[in-house]
Structures are given as structure tokens and as C-alpha cells.
């Protein structure tokens, strides 16, 4: 059934692979499309029924023989199925590739079922989802052994064995236990991989006898015995048999990396997010082996489909202008002397050292995400205390950095090839200086996500940025006026330390051997008073801790703990003391900080707020920039805050007043904390989550409704909802009743796309957050951690 030979073997029938195969079929090039499943595009096939699929980025034209536009899952898949049939694409289903060997012109692909085929070139388009782990015993492919559960209500009155101990297994088991007899098979003796909520859920379900858990048990074989379906299992006490109707194995997926590496393709580093580097023609380091789609770092459907088309053109020896060329041309249009984009890109690479580390394809994508700016002389690029988090590289001309607005002498100039903005990028905090453009300045402004992607995938970029960050923060915080040579010892003694939330940097009574500059996260300072740990202070990123012991030579007077995941720069005490001996200005500066901190500690001990501070830290204050707080002694539970939020934000409230914890009478409702390093931003395919200059973390219209942010937020403040523009009339409601403003729930439109909704701090409204402005009693308030601590200390 398999043709022995073909020119192009395409592995994986996702958007990228499918589009490549379709183009090959259209051109009449001999090809085969290998797909492990019995259907096309498994990832999208697995989307929930009726899910709305988005077609971001809008500006990018589609270039593929197959159709694609935003719409329902069924419509998208239907169009691809039809296109594949019409073009007579040679698809081989149930063909999982086990290995790829050989070289350009003579690759051998071995399939799981033992078959082999030869191809001149291979296009790998397997995405990042990986393969679902199977049962690993005979019978794993029986039709009553499944690896997915779409709708638990489909099954009633069955005996079902769930295999696995992760969150998916637990959630399935609990959901099925309502109407079925459920066993859950756990290889080990506890559920230690599960989320706390699921762990308590499963423990309770077992205790209540809702389902039975078999610990230390492994499946041995699933078989159709004469008496019915049976699963043999091995326990510590020997083998036994279970009569079952269905087995659902939820064992996670194997990341594709090991497979990809087995073909000879290399990854730039060990970071699990990193993807292999490819040439502008999508060729990997193995000649003749091409990589497209999510595995090449392009997670969006349209990009992937375009690459499928382009890769076949390249293989056929035709040069195609990439689909992004018009976009790049537009970016460069600001520079009048640029004629040829490839040349211009090459110039940028030469001029800016950190871009020199990128592959041409990475550079293209980086430039599409970035903006080229040519500010006029003296124009402000960003100001001190802005909340922006973009990164700037200087292509030509100069910029002037003003560290202190009150002291014009504290400024320095950066020129061609330098970069700035790395402080906010790393610490997630406000800008630490004002930057103005110098003469004939040309800059590349890159968004945070593109930078993080680069840092993760190109080791050299990370190293360069880290070094510069280190030097600048030491200079800025400790010795602004010292020449860099003076600091060389100190800089070379520095190392980056990482601490988990709650981990100790140093303890009270320890000898003071180092100073910690907080680079990311925040730290609490506590002291044991009356046998109890009392939190005295909160120190955010950008500040340092541990100087007291160095200045006074006494043991540590307090304990420093990471409030959230924190990174510090540890400066060696010896090198630091030597510098203080040499340079009185450093000593004076540190002593000044020391004196204010001693004074501060005296105040905090007389006005302890330890418990409340600790509670707030547990609620994420340590990484927050702005929190909504409700004083329950003033709150009359009128829900004006929620109504105001819904009314001003498309009838979807972004806060839940009643939910969330309370300490004493301070209530933290479920509402966005606008984290320094927003968890929601981590994995947003269209990069729709942004930080506004005043710190608001908000979601733009580019949202594709994938729900990643909702899952990534540890505070549960993002909801998926259908937003609507219409608002009920206040007067009509007052006169005749009906829909009340703020409580309006428009009729559900089944076709409407759900998008992520979160607090944007009403950045587009005059007057500030609607929730606070609508609170009649003064119970609702928004505060930054610094304001919060200050207000608590200082009364009102």
C-alpha cells in the first residue's frame, strides 16, 4: 500500500504538513503524507466540538492550496478534508513514524507497523503536542481502550478503569464516578503529581467510596476473554483480573523532542521551550530534512500553512518571497534609504551584536514582531517609572539615559550596537531611567514576548543580556559614578541565584557573607519575636538586602525569604567590603541605605503588621503591581463593583467580589493582581496579552480564545466569556423594569466566540477603575504593594 519511493515525505498532517502535501499534490510532485491517526490534523480534530478557530495574524495573507478562515472547528476541518480529496493528496493514515535515517536524496523512514519507505527529502511537521502515551501492554489498541474523554456524560452504568495518576486521570475518574463504577489504577502509592485541588478531590472520592483506587498496580494485558472484556493487572500481591467495559488511559504525552533529536536535528539548549533552528528555507541542520510549523517555532495556523506551501517551493528549487515580505517592507518604510529588505536585515545583524546570534528566519520573525523607530533628536523613548516592558536595540545614532531626573549629571550615552530596556524586561518592574533619543537615532523596539523567546532559544543572547544587566544594576544601585574597571572584582564575584517561593536567602544569626540584589520577584524580611516569625518588610525587585551585616560586621539581624519565585544577584561580601574600603562614596551610599533601614525596622517593630503582610504575600502581593482590596467592615455586599465592571466591559465582569480569601476583615476578591511577570502572558499564541504604560496587564482583540491564560493564572482571575457591546437603557429599566444596567446577560449566541476576559484596570476609561469609583461606601480600593504597606503602617 505504501509507495516504496517518493520525493517528499511529510510527517504529520497538521496545518503545516497538510498544506505542504496539498502544494506537492497540486504541483504533481511525488509525495506521501504520514499521519499517525485515522483523521487529519489531530490537534485541531481534538478541539472540543463547535470550538471557534481563529485566523490570526490578520495582516498575514494566506498562501496555500487549502482554504482557511476563522470559523468553527467543523468548518475548518471540512474544508481541509475536501481540499485534500480534491487535490488527491496521498495521505497514509495510521502511519506513525518510528525513525528517520539516511541523508539528503536517500532518507529511510521506518513506521511503527514495521513498514519502511524511502524519500529524497523529509518535511517534519509534527507540532509540539507529542504523542499520547499508551497503555504499554498487549491490548493497548483495542477499541474499548481509549486515551481521551470528551464528554463524561456519554457513559452510564459502565465499569471503567482509569489508568494514570495525573490531573487528567483524576478529573476523568471523578467525573465518571457519578454514573459508573470506576477504578483508578495508580502505579505508585500516592497521587503526588496532582494539583492540590485534585488531590483532595480524589482522596475524598476514595474515602467516600465513590470510586476504588488500586495503588501500586500496573496493567498487564487488556483482552477480549470469552466471558467479556478483561484487564489483567499486577499488584504487589500478584496478578488479578478485572471485568471492565472500558479502559481510559490518561498517561500524558511524550514530548516530540527525543524523536526529533534521534533524527540528528539539534536543539539550541536544554530549555523545554526551545525549538530547533532552521534556515530561511526551513531546512534543519540535517540537509534535506525540513522543519515547519509549531516545531519550528510558528504556532499559529496561518503561519504554518504558509510555510507548508513555501517549503515545497523551496524543495522544488524555486525562490519564493516569504509571505511576510510585505510586512517587513512596511516596517522598513520608515527608513527612506532602505531598498532591499534582505540587505537591510543583514545590516541590522552586523550592527547589533545580539541580533548577530540569530538565524535569518529567527531574525525575520523577530523583526516582524518588532518596530523600527527613528525618533527625532531629544524625543523621549520612555520615562522613569513607566510600566512599559519592550526592549530596545540601537541600530544607529545615540540615546541618552538619564538615571535621576533631579540630577542631570547622572546620565550616560549609548551608541550603535548597544541595547537598553533590559531591566524592566528581567525584573518586570517600572522603568528605572528616562531615555531620550540623540542625533540620527534608529532603534528596534521589540516586545517582551519576542525577547523572552530569543532568550530561551538563543543561548548567546541570554548570556549577553545577563552580563550587561549585571554590570548596569551594580553600577546603578551601588556605585553610579565609579568607572567600570573599579567594579570588575565585584562583577566577577557576582552570581545569579534562584529561590523558590518561601525559600530562605539567609537566616537571622547567620554570618553576613554576601549582599543580594533582587533581580526578579520580591523578598520579605522577618525576625523572630516572641518565638514567632514576624514579617517586618517587603523588598521588591531592584533593591538589595543583606547590606546590614556587611556594614556592621554583626551576624544577620533578620531572615530574608523569597515571597515568590525570585532571582537575586549574589555579591560576595569580601569583594564588596574591599570596594567599600577603597571608595568612600560606596561606603557612604550603603551606610545611608543601612541607616534608613534600621530606622524603618524600628518603626515596623513598633507597628507590627506581620500577619496581614504574610497573608497578603500568600495572596500574591509579592509579585503584584496592583491589587483590589475590600474592607469587609465597610462592604455592604451590594455588588456595585461587579456591576460596574460588567457594565463597562462588554457585560462580562472581571472580578468576583464574594470569592477569594479574607483575613481579619481584609478581603481579596478574585481579581487581577497585574503581576510583575504575568503568568497569563507565558503562553499566549497570538501574543494578545500586553502591559500598558501604567502597568495594566490587558488582553487585546487578537485573543483567539484558546484558554491558555485562564489555565496559567494561579489566582483564577481570567474568564472565558462572550462579550457584547449592547447595554440596556437605564431610564427604560427605571420606568418599565426589564434588564438592569450592570446585570445584563445577553442571550447566548452559539456562534459567538468566547474570548479571555480579565481586568484591564479600566485603562481606557476616564477616572480610573470603575469598581472603585462605583463603590458607595469606600470598601473597595486598589493599591500597589508599596502603597499597601505604607498605608497600613501610616494609618490613613
Amino acid at each position, binding site marked *: 500500500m505504501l509507495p516504496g519511493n517518493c520525493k517528499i515525505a511529510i510527517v504529520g498532517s497538521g496545518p503545516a504538513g497538510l498544506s505542504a502535501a496539498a502544494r506537492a499534490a497540486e504541483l504533481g510532485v511525488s509525495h506521501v503524507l504520514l499521519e499517525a491517526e485515522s483523521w487529519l490534523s489531530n490537534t485541531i480534530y481534538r478541539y472540543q466540538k463547535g470550538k471557534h478557530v481563529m485566523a490570526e495574524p490578520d495582516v498575514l495573507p494566506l498562501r496555500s492550496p487549502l482554504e482557511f478562515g476563522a470559523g468553527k472547528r467543523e468548518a475548518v476541518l471540512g474544508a481541509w478534508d475536501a481540499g485534500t480529496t480534491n487535490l488527491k493528496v496521498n495521505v497514509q493514515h495510521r502511519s506513525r513514524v518510528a525513525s528517520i535515517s539516511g541523508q539528503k536524496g536517500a532518507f529511510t523512514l521506518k513506521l511503527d507497523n514495521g513498514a519502511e519507505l524511502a524519500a529524497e527529502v523529509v518535511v517534519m511537521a509534527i507540532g509540539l503536542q507529542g504523542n499520547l502515551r499508551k497503555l504499554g501492554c498487549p491490548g493497548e489498541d483495542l477499541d474499548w481502550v481509549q486515551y481521551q474523554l470528551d464528554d463524561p456524560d456519554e457513559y452510564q452504568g459502565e465499569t471503567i478503569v482509569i489508568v494514570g495518576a495525573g490531573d487528567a486521570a483524576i478529573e476523568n475518574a471523578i467525573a465518571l464516578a457519578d454514573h459508573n463504577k470506576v477504578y483508578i489504577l495508580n502505579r505508585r502509592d500516592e497521587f503526588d503529581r496532582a494539583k492540590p485541588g485534585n488531590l483532595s478531590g480524589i482522596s475524598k472520592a476514595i474515602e*467516600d*467510596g465513590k470510586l476504588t483506587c488500586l495503588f501500586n498496580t500496573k496493567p498487564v494485558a487488556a483482552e477480549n476473554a470469552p466471558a467479556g472484556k478483561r484487564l489483567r493487572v499486577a499488584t504487589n500481591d500478584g496478578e488479578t483480573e478485572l471485568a471492565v467495559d472500558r479502559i481510559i488511559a490518561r498517561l500524558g504525552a511524550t514530548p516530540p523532542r527525543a524523536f526529533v533529536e534521534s533524527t540528528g536535528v539539534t536543539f539550541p539548549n536544554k530549555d523545554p521551550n526551545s525549538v530547533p533552528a532552521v534556515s530561511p528555507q526551513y531546512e534543519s541542520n540535517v540537509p534535506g530534512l525540513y522543519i515547519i510549523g509549531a516545531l519550528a517555532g510558528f504556532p499559529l495556523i496561518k503561519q504554518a500553512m504558509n510555510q507548508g506551501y513555501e517549503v515545497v517551493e523551496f524543495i522544488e528549487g524555486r525562490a519564493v518571497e516569504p509571505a511576510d515580505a510585505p510586512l517587513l517592507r512596511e516596517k522598513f518604510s520608515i527608513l527612506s534609504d532602505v531598498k532591499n529588505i534582505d540587505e537591510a536585515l543583514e545590516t541590522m545583524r552586523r550592527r547589533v551584536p545580539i541580533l548577530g546570534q540569530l538565524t535569518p528566519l529567527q531574525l525575520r520573525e523577530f523583526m516582524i514582531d518588532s518596530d523600527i523607530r527613528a525618533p527625532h533628536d531629544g524625543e523621549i523613548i520612555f520615562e522613569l517609572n513607566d510600566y512599559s516592558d519592550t526592549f530596545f536595540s540601537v541600530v544607529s545614532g545615540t540615546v541618552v539615559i538619564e538615571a535621576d531626573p533631579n540630577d542631570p549629571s547622572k546620565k550616560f550615552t549609548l551608541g550603535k550596537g548597544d541595547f537598553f530596556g533590559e531591566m524592566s524586561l528581567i525584573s518586570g518592574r517600572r522603568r528605572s531611567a528616562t531615555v531620550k533619543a540623540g542625533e540620527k537615532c534608529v532603534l528596534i523596539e521589540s516586545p517582551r514576548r519576542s525577547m523572552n523567546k530569543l532568550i530561551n532559544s538563543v543561548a548567546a543572547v541570554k548570556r549577553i543580556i545577563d552580563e550587561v544587566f549585571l554590570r548596569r544594576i551594580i553600577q546603578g544601585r551601588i556605585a553610579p559614578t565609579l568607572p567600570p574597571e573599579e567594579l570588575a572584582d565585584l562583577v566577577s564575584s557576582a552570581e545569579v541565584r534562584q529561590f523558590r517561593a518561601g525559600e530562605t536567602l539567609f537566616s537571622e544569626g547567620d554570618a553576613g557573607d554576601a549582599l543580594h540584589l533582587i533581580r526578579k520577584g520580591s523578598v520579605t524580611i522577618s525576625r523572630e519575636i516572641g518565638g514567632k516569625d514576624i514579617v517586618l518588610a517587603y523588598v521588591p525587585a531592584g533593591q538589595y538586602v543583606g547590606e546590614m551585616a556587611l556594614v556592621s560586621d554583626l551576624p544577620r539581624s533578620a531572615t530574608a525569604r523569597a515571597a515568590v519565585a525570585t532571582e537575586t544577584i549574589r555579591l560576595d561580601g569580601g569583594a564588596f567590603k574591599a570596594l567599600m574600603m577603597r571608595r568612600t562614596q560606596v561606603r557612604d551610599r550603603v551606610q545611608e541605605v543601612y541607616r534608613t533601614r534600621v530606622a524603618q525596622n524600628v518603626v515596623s517593630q513598633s507597628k507590627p*503588621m506581620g500577619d*496581614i503582610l504574610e497573608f497578603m504575600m500568600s495572596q500574591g502581593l509579592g509579585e503584584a503591581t496592583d491589587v483590589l*482590596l475590600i*474592607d*469587609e*467592615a*465597610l*462592604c*455592604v*455586599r451590594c455588588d*456595585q463593583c461587579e*456591576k*460596574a465592571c460588567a*457594565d*463597562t466591559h462588554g457585560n462580562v465582569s472581571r472580578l468576583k467580589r*464574594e*470569592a477569594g*480569601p*479574607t483575613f*481579619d*476583615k*481584609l*478581603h481579596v476578591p478574585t481579581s487581577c493582581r497585574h503581576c510583575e511577570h504575568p503568568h497569563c502572558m507565558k503562553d499566549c499564541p497570538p501574543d494578545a496579552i500586553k502591559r500598558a504604560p501604567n502597568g495594566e496587564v490587558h488582553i487585546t482583540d487578537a485573543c483567539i480564545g484558546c484558554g491558555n491564560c485562564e489555565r496559567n493564572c494561579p489566582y483564577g482571575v481570567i474568564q472565558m466569556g462572550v462579550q457584547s457591546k449592547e447595554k440596556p437603557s*437605564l431610564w427604560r429599566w*427605571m420606568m418599565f423594569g426589564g434588564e*438592569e*444596567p*450592570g446585570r445584563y446577560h445577553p442571550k447566548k449566541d452559539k456562534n459567538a466566540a468566547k474570548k479571555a476576559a480579565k481586568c484591564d484596570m479600566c485603562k481606557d*476609561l*476616564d*477616572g480610573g477603575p*470603575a469598581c*472603585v*469609583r*462605583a*463603590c*458607595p*461606601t*469606600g*470598601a473597595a*480600593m486598589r*493599591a500597589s504593594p508599596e502603597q*499597601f504597606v505604607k*498605608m*497600613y503602617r501610616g*494609618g*490613613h
Partner: protein
Amino acid sequence: MATTPHASFLRYERYRYLKFASLLCLLSIVAYWWHEPQDGPNGGTWLGYTLGTIGALLIVWLAWLGVRKRRYSSTLGTVKGWLSAHVYLGLALLTIATLHTGFQFGWNIHTVAFVLMAIVVLSGIFGIAAYARLPTLITENMGDADRETLIDEILDLNQQSLKIADLLGPEVHRIISRSTERIRIGGGLRDQLFRPLPQGRGLLDELRRVLADKQRAAAAEAYDPDSSSTVIFMAGEMAQARKSGDAAEKARQLMELISRRNALITRVNRDIQLHAQMQIWLYFHVPLSIALLAALVAHIVSVFLYW
């Protein structure tokens, strides 16, 4: 309790509107005292008209709070500022309107308007008191939990107790299932306001009695004197003892679950009661305000008609 940095609407901008309202009252009183019209103070003098106009404008403005607080995108002050002004100026209205009457009351539309105004202001005063006292009580009662979670927990405890009751025989099961069917949360307006529904002490007593009976019966069976000599019985007795010990343990668990459940029901009902008490005054304040507006129009029209 530590004070939070929040500032109540009553203290808005260092009592700005309290000061303003006091000044307004003071000026009115001084004017009233100083002004000596020929036929005694009344609404028809120039001062009477002035006070009347101020009062009428105040009433319309005070009622406008209902509109402003629902205009969520409005930037005309904050709702907190509005409420602060509403409270203090509303209290001032009582003085101004009283001075406007010149203490002339009778069985007419004018006095109706005045009485309505007085009731509205008094219900508002009740509201201030409710807002000052009840929120803290709600927090003390509910702690960290919210009502929905507690109700979920109650339903869960019901399930658990039914399961245990099942093991203790049909009679116990009947008692428990009857009690779960009878759970009442909330209730009518009167129940909500005044009487958090009690959860039967009777139930626990009945349960205790039935379980004690069962245990006695089991013990009597165990000490059957006829067969006490046989070795086989000894084994049986031990098993029986273990069984009845097991049942006693189950019974104890059941009692505990039911007490816990009842405590939760009391808490939820108390929460409902406090919420009801915090809102009930609005059911007078708002409709009477609308009646007041109507009476005010009638008062003004009739004054000008019979001028």
C-alpha cells in the same frame, strides 16, 4: 482588629459634606431666627420660599443618586463622594424642610409631603446604622467562607450522613433522609429578617434515642444466657461486640456529621438574615422617595394654584 487603610464614605474628604451640610443648617437656623415675618414664620414668606426651593432641589438631587450610581462610566465624582453628600445633605434636609414649614402642620397634601420626607430620611438613618454595624457581623459569621461553599458543604454532609445511616439500618436512614428533606434555608421575608431557622434539636434527640435502643437490643442479644457456655458462642460474641463497637463508632460519626451540618445551616441562615436586615430599609427608602417626589410635585402645584 487592625484598621485597614480604607476610608468610609462618612469620612469622605475629611467630612467635607458634613461641614457643608452643617453650615447650610446653621445658616438656615440663623436666618429663621433673625427673620420675623408679620404673620409668623410660614412657607409663604421670602425665607419660606427660599428654604422651600432649596429643599425641593435637594430632594431631586438626593433622588438622582439612584441614577448616578448606575451610570458606571460616569466621571462626575465617585459614588462614594455622592453617597457621602447624599447622607449629610439628606440629614440637613430634615432641618431645612422643617424650617420651611414654619411648624404649620395640618391634614393636607403639604403635611403629607413633609411626613413622607421625614420617613424617607428616618429610613435613611436606619440605613446608615445598618451599613455601619452589619458588614462586620456578616464577616464574623462567615469568616473566610462564602454562602455557596457552605451550601455545597451542607449537601455533601447530607450525602455522607445518608451513607452512614444506610449502614445503621432502615430506621436511622428514614430519620436522616426525612431531616435532609426538611432542611430549610432562607424562608419567607419574616423568617429571613427575624428568625434564623432553627435546625431541630429534636432530630438529634430522636437519633440518639433510636441508636441507644439499637445498642441495647444488640447488647441483650449478645448476652443470651442459654448459649453462653459454648466456645462457639464466645467467638460469636466477640464478633458481635466488634460489630456493635463498629456500629457505635458509626453512630458517633453520624451524630457528628449532623451536628456539623446543623451548625452550617445555622450559619447560612444567619448570613441570609444579616443580608436581609442590611437591605430591608431600602425597600422603604426607595419607594417612599418616589412617593415623596409625587407628593412634592402635588405640593408645589397646589401652592401655585391657590396662590
